[in-house]
C-alpha cells in the first residue's frame, strides 16, 4: 500500500491503469478530460495492454464500448455532463444488451446556461437508463468504488454496466491523501474478465440486438430489471471482500451518527463531508442530528433506507439537481416514497442546493437542520421544496 496525494481524476486514471481494461474508448470533456489524458499517456508509454480508441464524440465512444464489450473485452470509458447526455441513447442500449461496461462520470451541470461546475443533473438524468450508479464522497471512495464495481458489473448473473460518480472539481480536481494498493492486489481482486458469450466466437454465432416486439420485449426488459435488482446482493458481497482485503468498509449507504438521530439529512457525493462537520457541531450543542450518505443510488436500496430512517422524526433530502416541476428532486422522490409506509409519519423535506457548482457551506447545512426542526415542530403547512442559497 502506498499513500499518495492525488486528485479525483488522477486516482480514477490510476485505478484504470491497475484494472487495465482491454479497451478504453473515450472523448474529452471538462472536468473529466484528465482521466482520458492521463490514461492516454499510460498507453503511449506502454504501461498498459489496453487499446485506446480516441472516439470523435461521446456518442461514438459509448457505441465503441458496446461493440468492444460485446466482443468480450473488458471495456471502459469516462465522461461528464453534455458528454453523458450525448451518450443517452446508447446508455439504454448497453444494459439492454447486458454489457458490463464501466464508466467513471465526473458530475457537472447540464446546459443551458453552459456551466462546467458540479451538480448532479447529468447522472440523475441517466438514472433510469438501467446502469448501476455509485456515488463517491471523496477521492479515496472514488478509487475504492471503481475497483469494486468491475466485479459487480461483470458478475455473470448481473452483466449490467456501471457508473462511478465523482463531483466535478470538488473531487475531480481536489487533492487528497489516499491509499493506493499495489497493482498486483488490485489485479487479483478484479480478476480476469471471462465473458459468457462473445461476438468474436465465430464457431458459435449469435445475433445480438434483435428487434423484439410486443411478444418478447416486456419479458426481456423485466429480466434486465431483475439483474440490476439482484446486483444489490453482489454489491454487499463485493464490499465485504473488499473490506477483508483493503480494510475499508462500504455498504449501500453510510450512517453517520444516524442511529439515535431525530433529524437527519440524506445526501450523495462530496457535500457529505460538510454535513458531517455540521452534524458534529450541532451534536456539540446537544442536537440529535445525523446523516445518511447514499452511495448506491441504482439499484435503489429502498428497504434498507426505510429501516435506517425509521427512528427519525424528520429528514431533509439534499438534491443537487432539479426535476423541473416534479415532486422535488430525484433523491427526494425516491426517499419519500421509500419511507411512505412507515408506521410513524416521517416529515420529508427537499433542499435543492449547489446547482452549477454553487458552494454550500457548513453554516447553510446547520440552517437546514434548524429549518427542518422549525418546520416540523409547528402544525403548519410545510413548503416541501426549498432552495439553499438561492439569491432573490
Amino acid at each position, binding site marked *: 500500500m502506498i499513500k499518495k496525494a492525488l486528485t479525483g481524476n488522477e486516482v480514477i486514471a490510476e485505478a484504470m491503469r491497475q484494472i487495465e481494461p*482491454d479497451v478504453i474508448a473515450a472523448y474529452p470533456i471538462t472536468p473529466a478530460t484528465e482521466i482520458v489524458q492521463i490514461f492516454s499517456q499510460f498507453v503511449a508509454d506502454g504501461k498498459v495492454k489496453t487499446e485506446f*480508441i480516441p*472516439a470523435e*464524440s461521446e456518442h*461514438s465512444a459509448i*457505441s465503441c464500448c458496446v461493440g468492444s464489450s460485446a466482443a468480450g473485452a473488458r471495456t471502459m470509458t469516462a465522461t461528464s455532463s453534455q458528454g453523458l447526455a450525448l451518450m443517452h441513447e446508447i446508455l439504454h442500449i448497453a444494459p439492454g444488451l447486458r454489457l458490463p461496461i464501466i464508466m467513471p462520470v465526473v458530475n457537472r451541470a447540464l446546459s443551458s446556461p453552459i456551466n462546467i461546475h458540479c451538480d448532479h443533473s447529468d447522472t440523475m438524468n441517466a438514472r433510469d437508463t438501467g446502469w448501476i450508479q455509485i456515488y463517491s464522497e471523496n477521492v479515496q471512495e472514488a478509487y475504492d468504488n471503481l475497483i469494486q464495481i468491475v466485479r459487480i458489473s461483470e458478475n455473470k448473473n448481473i452483466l449490467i454496466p456501471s457508473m462511478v460518480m465523482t463531483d466535478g472539481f470538488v473531487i475531480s480536481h481536489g487533492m487528497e491523501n489516499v491509499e493506493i494498493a499495489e497493482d498486483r492486489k488490485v489485479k487479483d481482486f478484479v480478476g480476469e474478465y471471462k465473458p459468457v458469450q462473445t*461476438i*468474436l466466437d465465430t464457431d458459435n*454465432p*449469435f445475433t445480438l440486438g434483435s428487434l423484439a416486439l410486443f411478444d418478447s420485449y416486456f419479458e426481456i426488459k423485466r429480466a434486465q430489471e431483475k439483474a440490476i435488482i439482484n446486483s444489490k446482493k453482489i454489491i454487499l458481497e463485493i464490499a465485504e471482500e473488499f473490506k477483508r482485503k483493503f480494510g475499508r468498509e462500504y455498504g449501500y449507504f453510510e450512517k453517520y451518527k444516524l442511529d439515535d438521530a431525530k433529524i437527519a439529512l440524506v445526501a450523495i457525493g462530496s457535500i457529505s463531508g460538510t454535513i458531517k462537520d455540521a452534524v458534529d457541531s450541532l451534536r456539540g450543542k446537544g442536537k440529535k442530528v445525523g446523516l445518511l450518505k447514499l452511495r448506491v443510488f441504482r439499484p435503489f436500496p429502498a428497504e434498507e433506507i426505510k429501516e435506517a430512517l425509521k427512528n427519525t422524526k424528520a429528514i431533509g433530502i439534499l438534491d443537487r439537481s432539479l426535476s423541473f416541476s416534479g415532486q422535488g428532486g430525484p433523491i427526494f422522490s425516491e426517499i419519500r416514497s421509500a419511507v411512505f409506509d412507515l408506521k410513524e409519519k416521517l416529515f420529508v423535506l427537499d433542499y435543492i442546493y449547489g446547482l452549477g457548482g454553487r458552494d454550500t457551506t457548513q453554516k447553510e447545512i446547520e440552517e437546514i437542520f434548524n429549518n427542518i426542526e422549525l418546520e416540523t415542530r409547528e402544525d403548519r403547512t410545510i413548503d416541501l421544496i426549498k432552495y439553499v442559497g438561492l439569491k432573490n
Partner: protein
Amino acid sequence: MSSLKELSQRKGGITSGHRLCSGCGAGIMARQVMLAAGNYKVVVACATGCLEVATTIYPYSAWKVPWIHNAFENAAATISGVETAYKSLKKQGKIKKDLKFLAFGGDGGTYDIGLQSLSGALERGHDFLYICYDNEAYMNTGIQRSSATPKYAATTTSPYGEVISGKREFRKNITEIVAAHNIPYVAQTAVGYWNDLVTKVEKALEVKGPKFINIFTPCQLGWKYGPEKTLEIGKLAVETGFWPLYEVENGKYKINYKPQEKKPVEEFLKIQKRFNHLFKPERKEKLIQEIQDNIEKGWTELEKKEKCLN
C-alpha cells in the same frame, strides 16, 4: 474473383426466411456481400434499418455469423469497438483466429445520421469494410427523403405537389466524401452487377484498414416499381450513368464500366413511379434535362479524376 459456381456452393452468411419485401434490393445485396465474404470468418455490425429489422425479429435470425445491432447512427463506431477488442485480445493471445469485420448501413445510417460515426471510424483507421446499401431514402420508416434521395424523386417528406416537384436538391456524393478520407479502398457498385459487387467485396476484404463500398440498392416499395424489376433498375442506373461503377484504390480512380453509349436517364426514371410527376400529367422536359445534365457533369468529373488520379 470467385466464380458463380463457387459462390453457389458457399454456405453461411445470411439465409432465406427473413422478412424483407419481395424483390428487395437489400436482400440481394446482403446475400451477395456475405457470399463474397464467405471464405473468411466475419463479424457483422448492422445499423437500424430495413436489413436489420427484417432479418432479426426475435427469437429468429437470418444471420449465420456473429451479428450485432446497436443503434441507427453508430454501426461504424460499433464495429470500431468490435475490431479494437479483437486487436486487444489478439495482442494478448486470448484469441488466435483471423477475423474480418463488416458493417452494413442504409443511406440514412450512412449519408445522414451516421456520417460522423463513419468519418471517425475511417479516420481512426480501423480494419473493417463498411457497406452502404443505398436505397435513396429512409425506407424502414416509410420512404422519407435522405440526402441520398435524387433530385425530383417523390418521397413522403419530399412529395410533389402543386408548387414543388419532389425533392428539391441533388443528392450528396458520399462516395467522394469517403474517398476524401484517403482510405485504401472505396468503391461504388450496384445490385444487378453481381460480378462487380462480389469482386469489389473480395478485393476490399484483402486490404488492411478501412474500406467502403456504396451499393446502389433498388427498393420496389419506395421507388414504386414491380418487384421483378429490381435488377433491371439497378442496370439502368448504371447504363444511364446515373450510378457509375467505379473504385478508388489508394487514391487511384478507375471507372469499372463505361457504357458504349449511355442510355438517356429518362429510361431509368420513367419506370419508377417516384418520378411519375416528371412525365404526367404533362412531361416536364426542363426538369428531366436538368437531371440529364447533372449526370453528364458528374460523369465528366469522374473521367477527369480517372485520367488525373491513376
